[in-house]
């Protein structure tokens, strides 16, 4: 048996008929904003009669909405049509579906506008009129839609009820008998809430994209932290480590009375491993490692550098270290080259010139006569923004060190940029 609840007027704010229907059965289909279908199969063993069940549904709905109608029938189509057209409770006995819906106007069916106008021109006023037409003739004129409309006019179902999935809330809370002070004992309680939470996620083939930790403190305040690592995870150990590391950085200001965690679910990412690709790093372990290095990463001192599309020397930005899937490049070649060891910032230097070329350099930690040199190599740019202009020299000092020095053309001063190594 199926049931249908229909709100004749717009629902008050906050009232959701699906939630009301779920108090009776988990198999619920939301047809429209104010109409919901219920699968009531097997309820005859619980309720003495369909009428009692309908009365209970109607009473529960009437508590929340001012004007509701309910119908119970052995087909979902009949329940839907009757609830939409009759106030109060209607229980349609088995086998009387077609007769019950026959007097209803043809506008009760969700027909295309042109077809409804055509049926009116044919003189069809009720569903009974449409149901009385021969199925073969309707099929010849309208194709497969014709018999389908006829079956609907007889209150017959074309498809089963499609239940709406229940909302996924993944949370777990724990009220402590005694307040806990310190992260070490809290770690055990974190495990107790995270393990069932992650088990629930895995059962539903979900991962947590973020987890919110809500700690109730003894002074009545709340300490909330939300963690969103680079990769979703349903590993309780990883989440416990991440939360503990975060709490070490942001400790609660008082002892802890209650612990609650809420996960933001996301579908599990299917990973297709390949024989031909190298093994990829575990996202969980990577997230855990980066969380342990939060002192470095949060201040921009840890990550992966990305070179900027600029001729300005040393133009790069630090980005989050998140290596993507490796794609072997056939043309990638590595060479053994001299590298620059940069001084940040460049060392201010005093440079003596002979015939326009540097002959002696003196800076903090770099001092000596220049015995060999190559240059000058002039470059400038960004005149529209923060302009720069420089004249570079690669020089070898008598001590043996090779350095790159440059003269800033805008500031008219010399600097040691780095050591060539």
């Amino acid at each position, binding site marked *: 048996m199926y049931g249908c609840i229909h709100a004749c007027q717009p629902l008050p704010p906050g009232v959701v008929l699906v939630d009301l229907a779920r108090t009776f059965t988990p198999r619920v289909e939301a047809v429209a904003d104010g109409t919901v279908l219920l699968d009531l199969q097997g309820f005859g063993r619980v309720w003495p009669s369909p009428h009692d069940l309908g009365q209970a549904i109607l009473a529960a709905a009437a508590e929340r909405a001012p004007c509701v109608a309910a119908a119970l029938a052995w087909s979902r189509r009949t329940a839907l049509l009757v609830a939409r057209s009759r106030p109060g409770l209607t229980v349609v006995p088995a086998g009387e579906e077609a007769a019950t819906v026959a007097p209803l106007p043809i506008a009760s069916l969700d027909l295309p506008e042109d077809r409804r106008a055509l049926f009116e021109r044919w003189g069809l006023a009720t569903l009974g009129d449409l149901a009385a037409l021969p199925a073969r003739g309707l099929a010849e004129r309208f194709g497969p839609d014709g018999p389908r409309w006829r079956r609907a006019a007889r209150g017959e179902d074309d498809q089963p009820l499609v239940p709406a999935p229940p909302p996924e809330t993944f949370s777990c809370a724990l009220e402590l008998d005694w307040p806990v002070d310190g992260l070490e004992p809290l770690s055990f309680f974190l495990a107790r809430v995270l393990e069932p939470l992650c088990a629930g996620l895995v059962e539903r083939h979900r991962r947590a994209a973020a987890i919110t930790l809500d700690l109730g403190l003894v002074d009545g305040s709340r300490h909330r932290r939300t963690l969103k690592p680079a990769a979703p995870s349903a590993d309780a150990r990883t989440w416990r480590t991440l939360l503990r590391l975060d709490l070490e950085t942001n400790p609660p200001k008082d002892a802890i009375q209650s612990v609650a965690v809420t996960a933001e679910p996301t579908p599990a990412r299917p990973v297709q491993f390949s024989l031909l690709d190298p093994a990829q*790093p575990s996202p969980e372990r990577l997230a855990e490692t980066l969380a342990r290095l939060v002192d470095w990463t949060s201040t921009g001192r840890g990550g992966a550098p990305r070179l900027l599309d600029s001729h300005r020397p040393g133009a790069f930005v630090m980005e989050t270290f998140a290596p993507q899937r490796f794609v072997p490049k056939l043309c990638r070649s590595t060479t*053994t080259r001299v*590298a620059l*060891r940069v001084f940040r910032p460049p060392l201010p230097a005093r440079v003596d010139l002979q015939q326009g070329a540097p002959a002696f350099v003196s800076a903090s930690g770099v001092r000596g006569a220049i015995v060999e040199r190559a*240059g000058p190599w002039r470059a400038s740019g960004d005149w529209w923004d923060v302009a720069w202009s420089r004249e570079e020299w690669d020089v070898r000092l008598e001590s043996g*060190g090779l350095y790159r020095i440059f003269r800033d053309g805008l500031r008219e001063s010399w600097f040691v940029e780095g050591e*060539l*190594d």
Partner: protein
Amino acid sequence: MSPALKESLEELLRARRLQAEAPPLRGEDRRLQPLAFGVAVLDGLIAGGLPRGALSELHGPVSSGRTGLAIALCARSTGRGALVAWVDPADRFDPASAAEAGMDLTRMLWLRGSKSSSLPSALSALGTVLGSGLFEAVVLDLAGVAADEMRRLPNTSWIRLQRMIEDSPTGLLLLASSHVACGPGGVSLALGPARAEWSGAPGPGRLLRGLSSEASAGRHATRRASFSLDAV
């Protein structure tokens, strides 16, 4: 299954080490290959490259080619799809030089020191990096660190680091100006003063073509080899 197909499948399993629990295949060598610098004479000097699971060092004076060699080693690792880490307490690493050498910068974790951060905090971060087991090569650049700061480190630091990477596939390389530490299974590669090579006669248009240096390995520097690095 045809013999050729079986042979190619076994070759693939050997290369990818996909049967860790199964007995070795015919001709399979389960030992991990050392991390090569890509300079044949140098790799030959240290039995194929930097050993994994051991603390090694590469030391030499200013402009001896230490950084270029370390970058070459990391570039080869990233070219294979592995991850590398560069712990840089003095913040001297140049990403542009690394990119020119072919390093995939997206697969390198760079931890940059600052004036306020100390060497012990860098070593602590290094411990985290090594403990993760994610990285094939890890470089600790001590070449720009002041000598008195190095002296303040407890000697047990290097023993602790060696213990952390034992039996792991990670190779740890110390980059320094002089000998610092070397694990029991590691190699100590000492570089001599380099000779600069220029493109022509002194004057405008001259370029630094590269560096030529000599490396020695072994307790008494008995094994020696010359190598060169390109600059252009």
